[in-house]
């Protein structure tokens, strides 16, 4: 057996997706998985970034624009361009939106702390404050929360558990970041949103790719080959991928596994929830 060559090309082909077909499946997914709970509306946290723009556009297609509420939740240090971009999309989609400033809530909580928390802690607090506001709007609007976490950030653990990772249904969780970009083009997401550098916008000037230390395109190729194609780290390194990057990505996937699972339950009985009490979520639906 000779070694496989050109894994990079294989990854590029694998990550290339058919946007029309993908949209069709994802719109049906949103509609079907929400409507079977007798709910016909959705709420989406719209940040001005590409992921939430794609989720929002898909939800608007699934239910019709009047049944999707975009929730804009800026903090006082949030980039004003993010809000402007979100508003452009709201207008383009013709969906209702609501603006909920989280500054007072976040600053109130921060003021109760004795020390000055790290940027990570501040970011987590903002993310979870948004989750509280979003789930409140879910109840008020009568719609389920459509998630905005893509496969790359879910695999890397680049998100806040019980914060931006929280949702009822997530249409883009099986799409890598570069695939979300391709879908954004097909969905006519405004160019300003598609072209800007990805950022969690948790502090001024934050950039995902600077913070992570690698670009999404390469990360997606490595993750696609390791996860979807089940190549080994050795295969990737032999094919020319940088060893440090491959190991770093694999380490992040392993380290963040807890974020992708429900909290552990100490087993005592013979039938423990999600261990040997195994019912589908769509039980009876």
């Amino acid at each position, binding site marked *: 057996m000779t070694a496989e060559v050109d894994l990079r090309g294989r990854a590029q082909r694998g990550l*290339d997706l058919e946007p029309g*077909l993908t949209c069709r*499946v994802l719109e049906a997914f949103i509609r079907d*998985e929400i409507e079977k709970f007798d709910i016909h509306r959705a709420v989406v946290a719209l940040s001005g970034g590409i992921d939430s723009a794609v989720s929002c556009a898909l939800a608007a297609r699934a239910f019709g624009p009047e049944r999707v509420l975009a929730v804009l939740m800026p903090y006082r240090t949030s980039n004003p361009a993010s809000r402007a971009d979100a508003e452009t999309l709201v207008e383009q989609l013709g969906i209702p939106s609501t603006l909920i400033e989280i500054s007072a809530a976040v600053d109130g909580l921060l003021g109760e702390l004795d020390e000055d928390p790290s940027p990570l802690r501040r970011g987590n607090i903002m993310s979870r404050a948004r989750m509280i506001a979003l789930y409140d709007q879910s109840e008020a609007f009568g719609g389920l929360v459509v998630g905005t976490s893509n496969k790359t950030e879910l695999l890397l653990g680049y998100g806040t558990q019980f914060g931006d990772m929280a949702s009822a249904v997530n249409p883009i969780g099986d799409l890598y970041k570069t695939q979300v970009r391709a879908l954004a083009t097909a969905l006519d997401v405004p160019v300003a949103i598609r072209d800007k550098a990805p950022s969690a916008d948790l502090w001024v000037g934050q950039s995902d790719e600077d913070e992570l230390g690698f670009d999404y395109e390469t990360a997606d190729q490595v993750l696609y080959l390791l996860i979807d194609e089940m190549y080994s780290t050795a295969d990737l390194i032999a094919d020319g991928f940088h060893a440090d990057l491959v190991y770093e990505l694999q380490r992040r996937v392993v380290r963040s596994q807890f974020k992708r699972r429900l909290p552990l339950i100490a087993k005592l009985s013979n039938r423990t929830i999600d261990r040997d009490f195994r019912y589908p979520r*769509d039980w009876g639906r």
Partner: protein
Amino acid sequence: MQNIRLALAQIRPALGDLDHNLALHLDYIERATTAGADVVVFPEQSLTGYFLSDLVPDVALPRDDPRLDPLREASQRIDVIFGFVEETTDHRFLPAAGYLHKGAFVHVHHKVYLVTYGLFDEARDLAGGGAVRAFDTRFGRKSMLICEDLWHPTTASIAAADGADVIYGLSSSPGRGVAGGTHELGSAETWRAMNRLYASLHVCYVVHCNRVGFEDGVNFWGGSEVIGPDGELLARAPDFEEALVFATLADAPLRRQRTRLPLRRDEDVTLNGREFARIAAQRHWQDDG
């Protein structure tokens, strides 16, 4: 074979809701009967839904269960092929395809190849069958196979060698694979190739009935179809949407194609039997060694 006016019922069952699904069956059966169909075929586990996990014992039925009486009754007017989970007298649960005619089961096929890899976990909850058979109906000799059975080409070979002129394939096939450059799902592409290949090489009709809808985020893509003995597409339901689609399965094309391409006549069942028996014996010896 006798000509068949066939109805493909591409339904969206509710997961674990027998009453709902039974009503759904009766509705499609009524529509198929009204349209003059002789046979109506439903997908795999059409009566129960697919990703059951611990729901299996709640929805499994012995074949004489009175809850099946409405289907038995409906089969007075039209032959009904449907999917369910059969509970045996010793309380095993087997994925099953039933063929009902005039109020009785003509045949029940149990899925031979349970699928336990990737997103599937059937062998955790279900038991597999032990036979692949063709059986006689009022329209001639037929066979039923269930989803993963057809990913093992030998099952179709056995059905054909046993004389089936129609292979009914019942599926709950999850859609996956959205690679660029094609306008269909990877799983759909593979199924369509398989259906066409089996029909062409076994010179028979292949009826593939797949379901639609979602279960726990997984989509079932539909695209049910009928392929003729020359590999021609005779009918196809749309992808992703519920549908009732009709096709006529006639004897004349079967005769013509078997005359032009007598693959069935030339198939050496004795050779197959001898060689498979040899391989099975060797494997047995190797496994022990």
